[in-house]
């Protein structure tokens, strides 16, 4: 098989896994199963970042998305699942509203997006040898992108304070 490189095979495998886990997130009735399929999506996107030679972004995806946001999601599921006192059942079934308008809307948006993708003449030129991106990212963050960097740190402080205020116990 000389028309199918190993890189394309790996790309197809990872992207099919990612889309499959995304389908489990979208269509599953169990909330915890959706959360763990979301873990699969994040891991698949991590694999795609590695294929795109984005090493720093891939590690950040692993640490922050899987290690931070997904753990936060699981904590939220744990804290907000109502446990009936008498029978000990947990209400984790994910009800869905009537899906027909959502299906039609999603298909229309999908047709527009995929049509736009296939019609564009993408002007790409490939990369040379892979170079480690971390020092280049640090360089850009402290020179051209200094203002967004500082603003993002300000946002993080605001988010911390705001989240504590929102979720604290009322002191009577």
């Amino acid at each position, binding site marked *: 098989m000389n028309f199918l490189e190993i890189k394309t095979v790996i790309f197809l495998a990872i992207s099919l896994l990612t889309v499959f886990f995304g389908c489990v997130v979208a269509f599953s009735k169990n909330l915890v199963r959706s959360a763990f399929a979301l873990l699969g999506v994040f891991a698949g996107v991590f694999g795609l970042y590695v294929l795109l*030679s984005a090493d720093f972004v891939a590690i950040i995806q692993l640490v922050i998305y899987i290690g931070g946001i997904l753990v936060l999601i699981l*904590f939220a599921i744990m804290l907000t699942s109502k446990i009936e006192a008498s029978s000990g059942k947990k209400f984790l079934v994910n009800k869905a509203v009537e899906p027909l308008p959502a299906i039609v809307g999603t298909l229309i948006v999908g047709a527009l997006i995929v049509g736009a993708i296939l019609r564009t003449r993408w002007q790409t030129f490939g990369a040379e040898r892979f170079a480690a991106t971390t020092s280049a990212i640090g360089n850009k963050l402290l020179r051209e992108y200094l203002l967004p960097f500082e603003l993002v740190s300000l*946002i993080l402080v605001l988010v911390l304070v705001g989240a504590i205020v929102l979720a604290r116990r009322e002191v009577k």
Partner: protein
Amino acid sequence: MQVEFFIIVGAALFLLGLYTCLTRTNAIAILMGIELILNSAALNFVAFSHFRQNNISGHIMALFIIVLAAAEAVVAFAILLAIYKRFNGIDTQKTVTLKE
């Protein structure tokens, strides 16, 4: 491995996240759909960066997207905990308090 393949994968994730946002009544599931959408956007940026000779601005944009998604998830779950205390549940169809 051309750029269209990666963008179509990003578009598929975007559509799945959109469907999740639109059909679920559980607030946590809606937030999971938003995370899917943000992931697809970051994947798009990194794909474009790779096919333009590793222009590092795409990676920086992906990093900002990841950081802002984390911040937004924190605030969203704080609001969710407050709603859970008030309404004793997070079904979004039961948190309607507008008078008829």
